[in-house]
């Protein structure tokens, strides 16, 4: 059961509390995104583009390793932390 860390900006929009979210019954990145969409309707559009790839301003990491944008079928079995990191430019 991976912990999911969501980017700050997305937490603001979808009113997700700080810290990690626990996602049950998810075995791929796609199913994690689907579970997030169930909880926070609309978030999928901020994570994936229409053809299902990860958005170009987002990188998804599985225990510190980035997935290929088109590899959303990647397994999350045994993954401890999934990080969704949006591009930032604050300075």
């Amino acid at each position, binding site marked *: 059961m991976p912990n999911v*860390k969501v*980017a*700050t*900006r997305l937490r*603001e929009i979808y009113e997700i509390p*700080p*810290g*990690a979210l626990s996602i049950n019954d998810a075995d791929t990145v796609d199913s994690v995104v689907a579970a997030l969409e169930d909880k926070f309707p609309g978030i999928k559009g901020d994570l994936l583009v229409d053809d299902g790839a990860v*958005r*170009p*301003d987002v*990188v998804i*990491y599985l225990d*510190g*390793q*980035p997935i*290929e944008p088109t590899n959303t079928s990647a397994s999350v079995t045994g993954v401890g*932390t999934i*990080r969704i*990191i*949006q*591009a*930032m*430019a*604050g*300075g």
Partner: protein
Amino acid sequence: MDQIVTEERYVRQIPIMGETGIQRLKQSKVFVGRCGGVGGTVVNYLIRSGVGNLICAHGGKIVPEYLNRMQLAYEGDVGKPCIDAFRDKTEKINPATEIEYIGKNITEIDNLDEVLDGVDVLIDAHPLFEERYELNDTALRLNVPMVSGAMYGDEGYVFSILPKKTACLRCLYPERPKFWTNIKVFPALGMGPGIIGCSMAREAIELLLKNESPLLGRMLHFDLTDMDFSVLEMPQVDCPH
């Protein structure tokens, strides 16, 4: 061989980098793109560490909302050109540091390649993606390493790129987020930019001393809301940019 003279201000660094390292920093040149919350912290620590030459590019004037995070801006600076406020501070840290201040932001500098001639490391502390992509492309063109740091609220990251050896900013984020259209979009509390600036300064020094650093091709990411710090791998790609 000439006898190296190390000023007392640097003696604590000798065990870390040796006197030859301190000498090397004195002969180094670093470009800092924007000297705000992040970049101003980098400038502060590079000067204090003995980096001998800096180019600092930052346009505009100091406004009150800068005061919550910009180390080089004080109450009395409001309304002044940013570079005048910054110069006033940096001169007091170490007047021997050679700093060329440019009162423009990077996308407004016409002869950028000329300006950056001879620079050893580029610092990307820009609040706009257009400026970040500009410096990224310049780093690739000039084959100069770049240290990039950015934040949004209590979250931030730092990574370093070595042209043609690591992923670049365009490899990592081919596009900016749709909402990032101006410099007022990000919430900020001074600690985040401070942590990023310190980490970037240390990366820059490691690159200057050894031409390698811990965050080449990797990203330090943090979220201060739950004090979650981690080092992540950047995509392993043959950078096509």
